[in-house]
């Protein structure tokens, strides 16, 4: 096992990994930028190394500085967390070159699965389902018509060099195909200097369901079941749960998706923790989307239903241990849900809200797990992702888990910066969410509403506390109230 591990990350995931290291009695090294000198991670680590100025390009993304810190502190392994350099094959290679173990898959696996197109090719080569479409650029209309009728309307035209919705057109029927192709190609040309477009089947209201994988360096690979992450805003997951509500309707789904994910991972020679992401349509057909070659933000929900610790296992597997579990050993119990607490303002288009956390009350009690990177008095920097903490709960069944998460949120107070606690309380009360009727565009139409200002006794209580020396309400003070 490793003697000392450097955690090449910040925020709640750095804290998560540092906790695992302490539990395994492995010495730890945190890293920090100017903005993070007072971070919780630095306080919880045995040692800490300064990286540089706050912008991540000058700190958490600097391979040279991270390896210099590992050398200076005598770390024999690096845990990359998620984000930053966690899926960077060059970083994995540089670690190997420096004689430091990268806690994750091999450089070759990261490269094979790193881009969406190479991962898609790999999936096709092993017969795993991908969203039906063309692999090469469309060159003429008759070819486009033939393929579109083959995969079935509606189809999506996408720019080959694209991203961010540019050069994308949804086509409902053949009559509008020609014009849409022309528009998409010219938009692609303007945006990416390449007019190449391809066709894909358009999935209507798909679910996002992903499979957690775990492998050792000796060819053993298992899956730990699924997580449903369909509640997303701007392609950012906000609530994740396991099992998927679909699993209750179709118990074979987990097994079928797990097998598809394993096939892809085996073809890439995958080891350590990873996640295969899928879209699932209304007929419960699933399509491979991409592989995340790292620990996921939402890994706690899998840990809660499987009673496994993924970071402990990552450490063991990276150190060369044989996978201590077989597929048949994995048991799923109860239901887990997690929500991501962000420094953002739901009443103002989810505007980010950095600043000092003036007051912080955290939930506890049965079935509650909080993975936090913050504390009262912490100044949330504007330089990084606004994730403050992940609040996850476990309960014997889904409805109890929803009620428990709502209860835990009702115990949580964050003052000084805006946050999405009340947004979650409203979302968890939505009939579609309670029914498990989820899809990836659900939040596009979900309307957050500010709660009604306090009135009657509640207002009286608030006003009384505001001036605790005044026994009765001061009549002269007229107040207006605005919720965050």
């Amino acid at each position, binding site marked *: 096992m490793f003697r000392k591990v450097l955690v090449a990350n910040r925020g709640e995931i750095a804290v998560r990994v540092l906790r695992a290291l302490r539990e395994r009695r492995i010495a730890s090294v945190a890293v920090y930028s100017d903005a993070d000198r007072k971070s919780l991670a630095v306080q919880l680590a045995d040692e800490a190394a300064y990286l540089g100025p706050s912008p991540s390009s000058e700190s958490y993304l600097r391979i040279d500085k991270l390896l210099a810190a590992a050398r200076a502190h005598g770390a024999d392994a690096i845990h990359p967390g998620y984000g930053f350099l966690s899926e960077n094959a060059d970083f994995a290679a540089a670690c190997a070159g420096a004689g430091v173990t990268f806690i994750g898959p091999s450089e070759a696996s990261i490269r094979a699965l790193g881009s969406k197109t190479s991962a898609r090719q790999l999936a096709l080569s092993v017969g795993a389902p991908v969203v039906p479409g063309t692999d090469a650029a469309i060159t003429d209309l008759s070819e486009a018509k033939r393929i579109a009728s083959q995969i079935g309307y509606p189809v999506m035209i996408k720019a080959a060099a694209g991203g961010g919705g540019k050069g994308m057109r949804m086509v409902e029927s053949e009559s509008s195909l020609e014009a849409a192709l022309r528009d998409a190609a010219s938009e692609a040309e303007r945006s990416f200097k390449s007019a190449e477009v391809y066709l894909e089947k358009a999935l209507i209201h798909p679910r996002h369901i992903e499979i957690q994988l775990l492998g050792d360096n000796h060819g053993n690979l298992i899956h730990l079941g699924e997580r449903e992450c369909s509640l997303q805003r701007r392609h950012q997951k906000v609530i994740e749960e396991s099992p998927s509500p679909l699993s209750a309707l179709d118990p074979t789904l987990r097994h079928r998706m797990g097998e598809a994910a394993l096939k892809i991972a085996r073809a890439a020679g995958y080891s350590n923790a990873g996640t295969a992401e899928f879209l699932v349509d209304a007929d419960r057909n699933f399509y491979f989307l991409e592989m995340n070659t790292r620990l996921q933000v939402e890994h706690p929900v899998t840990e809660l239903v499987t009673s496994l610790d993924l970071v402990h296992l990552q450490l063991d597997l990276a150190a060369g241990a044989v996978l201590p579990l077989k597929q048949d050993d994995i048991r799923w119990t109860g239901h887990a849900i997690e929500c991501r607490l962000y420094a953002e303002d739901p009443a103002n288009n989810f505007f980010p809200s950095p600043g000092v956390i003036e007051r912080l009350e955290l939930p506890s009690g049965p079935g509650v797990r909080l993975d936090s990177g913050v504390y009262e008095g912490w100044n949330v920097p504007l330089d990084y992702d606004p994730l403050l903490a992940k609040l996850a709960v476990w309960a014997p069944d889904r409805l109890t888990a929803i009620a428990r998460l709502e209860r835990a949120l009702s115990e949580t107070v964050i003052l000084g910066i805006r946050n999405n606690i009340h947004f979650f309380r409203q979302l968890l009360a939505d009939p579609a969410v309670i029914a498990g009727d989820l899809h990836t565009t659900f939040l596009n139409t979900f309307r957050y509403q500010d709660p009604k200002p306090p009135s009657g006794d509640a207002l009286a209580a608030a006003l009384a506390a505001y001036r605790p020396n005044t026994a009765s309400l001061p009549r002269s003070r007229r107040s207006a109230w605005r*919720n965050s």
Partner: protein
Amino acid sequence: MNPDIVEIRPGVFSVLLNGRSYVIHEASSNWIALNSIEWERVVADPRLRATAGPAAASAIRDVKAAMPGKVVRLLANSGDTVEAGQGLLILEAMKMQNELRSPRAGVVAAVRVAEGTTVASGQVLVTLE
């Protein structure tokens, strides 16, 4: 009935009123949490009335940054006529881009920042006529 108030620790109050239990957390002078739901308390001082409340939007001339960030794109130019809610510029912070919208219809008198400018919270970004 008069409320029964106790200060549990500095800035945290338990209030019992008509048999019900309330907990109030205070932060700065304007923010409280009432039974864990946050509220901004706006005192309706007569001297401030001109700039507070729904009627005030029509009086806003300076559009300010609600938070620190970097201007990544300008969506309106000096002299443009804008609708209420129309995007004026895009501000980036915490890896997210956010559109800053006009509080009212009007004409843009001046755009005070350029693309790439790093701005502080409260800094005037756009002035409306």
